[in-house]
């Protein structure tokens, strides 16, 4: 017995199927025979699919609720990189009060679903930033705040600066400005809320 077997198809082409040594050639099962499932076998399959259908239905029903809850309680990581962090901090103060939109900075990436990169990212810090991003549970979003995070800003050609944090991981909302005012940061967060509603609502 050889380790390859050849079968001639009706069109006349020869297909060589490689087999392990010692294996017998696999019997060819016609497609019609595979599709023909008896009712006895069908009922358990149908029950499994029903469970999946119920799960999917529950997801469809609860998705808007979870989406509503998630987008109205975005918890950003309390991370300050550069001068944009001052605007970030001011945004959570009494004057702008980002907490009225449900945005509460948290100190652990494991409790966050939003990463606001507010400042210049250097190559040395990029590894730490990726680690923080990977520590955050799904679903998660990222905002590049200010020109440095968006595209490197005035340090774009520097030897030490990442020219745009989207070289490291995907960004959902870019906020321009050097630095952007807290209103711009709030606008970016509200745009992200709209994006979440439209993309996953």
């Amino acid at each position, binding site marked *: 017995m050889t380790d390859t077997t050849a079968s001639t198809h009706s069109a006349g082409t020869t297909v060589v199927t490689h087999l392990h040594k010692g294996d017998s050639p696999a019997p060819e099962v016609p497609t019609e025979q595979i599709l023909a499932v008896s009712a006895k076998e069908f009922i358990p399959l149908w029950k499994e699919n029903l469970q999946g259908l119920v799960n999917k239905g529950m997801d469809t029903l609860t998705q808007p609720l979870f989406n509503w809850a998630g987008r109205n309680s975005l918890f950003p990581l309390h991370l300050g990189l550069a001068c944009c962090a001052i605007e970030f901090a001011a945004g959570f103060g009494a004057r702008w009060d980002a907490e009225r939109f449900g945005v509460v900075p948290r100190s652990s990436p494991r409790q966050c679903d939003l990463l606001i990169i507010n400042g210049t990212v250097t190559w040395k810090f990029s*590894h730490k930033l990726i680690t923080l991003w990977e520590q955050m549970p799904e679903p998660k979003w990222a905002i590049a705040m200010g020109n440095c995070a968006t595209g490197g800003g005035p340090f774009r050609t520097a030897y030490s600066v990442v020219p745009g944090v989207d*070289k490291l991981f995907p960004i959902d909302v870019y906020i321009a400005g050097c630095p952007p005012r807290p209103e711009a940061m709030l606008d970016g967060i509200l745009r992200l809320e709209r994006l979440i509603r439209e993309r996953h609502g």
Partner: protein
Amino acid sequence: MTAVSSWPEALARLKAEVPDAITGESARPGVLAVLAVPAPSIRRLATWLRDEGTFSHCSLVLGIDWIDHMEVVYHLWSDALKGYLELSVTLPAEDPHVDSLGGVWGGAIWHERETWDLLGIRFDGHPDPRRLLMPEGYKFHPLRKSFELREPEELEVKSRHV
């Protein structure tokens, strides 16, 4: 031996007690003196300046790329003399290296790490010869005059565990 009380006295004793440690002496406003030091005798001179010359504080170590040669400058502060002393070591452009003063003044350790990181001047016998500002694995010494602007792909260090 008693500690020195004035800079001329310190200089006279330095020339007597550490012969051949300095090759030149010049003046600059703001510092007691600028001493040109040959690279092999820097550690001997630094130890004397700390123990006998009352220069207890090394406030700055910096490197200069003069293209045809390299220079390392040390700024030392003396509480007793109320003044700075500047030491200047000239090094060749190819493979510049000088003895580390990290064992003499602990404060020199970070400055020497920075000088190694940005200018590629090696400090022999350094207790912690890592880069300071750039990530480990970075291939360049970016403040050298020969460093040119590069694409970000060249600058990125792929390893995340640094």
